[in-house]
């Protein structure tokens, strides 16, 4: 497996249905042709995301298993991560796991129009926010008024 594929296969430790590539936090994978040293660049979703240490360790482990033991993981903060970086495939996986994917981030200066968050269980748009903050830094807690199920919503950032 090449280094890019190996790093891209690492699963987010807190949302275990989506890879770090699909989540949009894997920024670059470079291999030095001479030394074979691999440099992986990642960015956190939230500044205080407690999963970053585990993600770094998982990347090094995946690279070692793929035969790239000499690896370095760098963390960058600019440009800041946005939920717009989550791939379509990632969004589909989130929805299938019962986590409502985020709406597109409104452009600055544009009057924001809040789109209804659809219930990932029954598809109803009749939902309400229970709390802006949820089980991880990137999620909010919602409830469906049609099927009464609570669900996580990855909030637009």
């Amino acid at each position, binding site marked *: 497996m090449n280094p890019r594929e190996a790093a891209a296969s690492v699963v987010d430790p807190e949302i275990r249905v989506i890879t770090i590539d699909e989540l949009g936090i894997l920024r670059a994978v470079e291999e030095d042709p001479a030394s074979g040293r691999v440099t992986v660049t990642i960015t956190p979703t*939230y500044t*205080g995301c407690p999963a970053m240490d585990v993600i770094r360790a998982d990347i090094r482990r995946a690279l070692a298993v793929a035969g790239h033991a000499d690896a370095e993981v760098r963390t960058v*903060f*600019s440009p*800041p991560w946005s939920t717009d970086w989550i791939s379509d495939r990632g969004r589909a996986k989130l929805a299938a796991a019962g986590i409502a994917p985020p709406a597109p981030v409104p452009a600055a200066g544009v009057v924001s129009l809040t789109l209804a968050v659809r219930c990932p269980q029954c598809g109803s748009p009749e939902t309400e926010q229970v709390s802006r*903050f949820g089980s991880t*830094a990137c999620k909010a807690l919602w409830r469906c008024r049609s099927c009464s199920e609570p669900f996580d919503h990855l909030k637009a950032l």
Partner: protein
Amino acid sequence: MNGPFDFTLGLGDDALIAAQRLAEWTTRAPEMEEDVALANIALDQLGAARLLLSYAGELEGAGRDEDALAYLRDDREFRNALLVELPNGDFAVTMAKLFFLAAYQLPLYTALAGCADERLVAIGAKARKESAYHLDHGALWVKRLGDGTEESHRRMQSAVDQVWPYTHELFAADPAAPVDPATLRSAFDETVGAVLAEATLTLPGSGWAPAGGRTGVHTEHLAYLLAEMQVLHRAHPGAQW
């Protein structure tokens, strides 16, 4: 008086001490969702604190990293504003502190994102998105309690009266800093004015403006907070998970 090091250290200390105070609510908040919310906000503050303190350590160039700055300084060496070290009080006092802090940090981080220092630009651009959620959350509670029952209104007004004097220190002019805090005052006043009006609350008329945090002269509360935050690192120097 302040170079980029003092400025960055002050902002890092604001975030660190705010995080530690908010974390005191964990397992004690009035409802489960609020417990999770306050812990999340504390985590965001801690994330910003780590970035700011790491950078402050680099600016200082004396070999101090984020841990050395967080765990191995005494109260007189901390540069946070007094607002963040005040005890949590009741839930209304905590919400007044959270709301005022976020109403200051949002324009602050937004201004940092456009300043001349590229490291502060990256930190500001990242942290301001999180601050927007904190401001939303604080404003929501200030309105809900202020425009709620007679008792919730009384408590929220009392909290505003108690905390408001400490907000002035945040905007002390510092023209040499990467962002002069005095330039943030109008955005802050606008936010606060709009939210308090909707919450049927008023600002106290008194001009009392306690200060000293930015020069290391703190209230009696900070040393107790630091004692708890630093005890493990001081008892076991260099301890790691």
